[in-house]
């Protein structure tokens, strides 16, 4: 992989992490009664989103909705089949039962997310297929109208 692509992926990861951290920090600040500091964290967090989107734009471009769903399914599937199972085994090796349990929870969440995206995609495919047929009928109806109009005009012109 090109070094620039790798850097873009690292930058995306970094900005995403900063966003999540600032949201977390904002919650802490708000709980401690520092509303202005909480808002500052949130404001910065929002800017990190824009930075991350800039990186994503270069990394994935603008995929179609269907491609977005496929990317989401791939990402979630990677999480519950590869990433989290590896992390879980390593947490167990270290005797960190607390982390292993939290990872178990993440595995089932990722599985659910993947299934939800899959369901949405199948539903969308069904809809697009059905709509394509409706549009075909519309086109046919316009064509019939056009033909009858031309026929009428031909009759009138013949008079």
């Amino acid at each position, binding site marked *: 992989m090109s070094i620039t692509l790798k850097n873009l992926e690292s930058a995306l990861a970094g900005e995403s992490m900063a966003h999540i951290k600032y949201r977390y920090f904002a919650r802490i600040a708000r709980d401690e009664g520092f509303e202005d500091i909480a808002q500052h964290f949130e404001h910065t967090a929002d800017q990190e989103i824009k930075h991350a989107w800039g990186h994503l734009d270069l990394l994935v471009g603008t995929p179609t909705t269907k491609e977005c769903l496929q990317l989401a399914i791939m990402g979630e599937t990677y999480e519950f089949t590869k990433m989290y199972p590896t992390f879980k085994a390593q947490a167990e090796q270290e005797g960190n039962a607390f982390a292993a349990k939290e990872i178990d929870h993440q595995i089932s969440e990722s599985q659910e997310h993947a299934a939800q995206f899959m369901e949405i995609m199948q539903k969308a495919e069904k809809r697009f297929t*059905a709509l394509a047929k409706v549009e075909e*009928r519309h086109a046919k109806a316009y064509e019939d109208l056009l033909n009858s109009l031309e026929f009428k005009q031909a009759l009138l012109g013949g008079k």
Partner: protein
Amino acid sequence: MSETHVCVVCGHEHDETIEGKWNDLPADFTCPECGVGKEDYEVI
């Protein structure tokens, strides 16, 4: 047993207990809301 058929696009429902048997509808029946054909309804 009566069934309810739902349009996959807009969710329009055809309830057999109110609107009669699905199979009695003509083959060229289309969804009154969005125009999809009978084949694009699902039974719920």
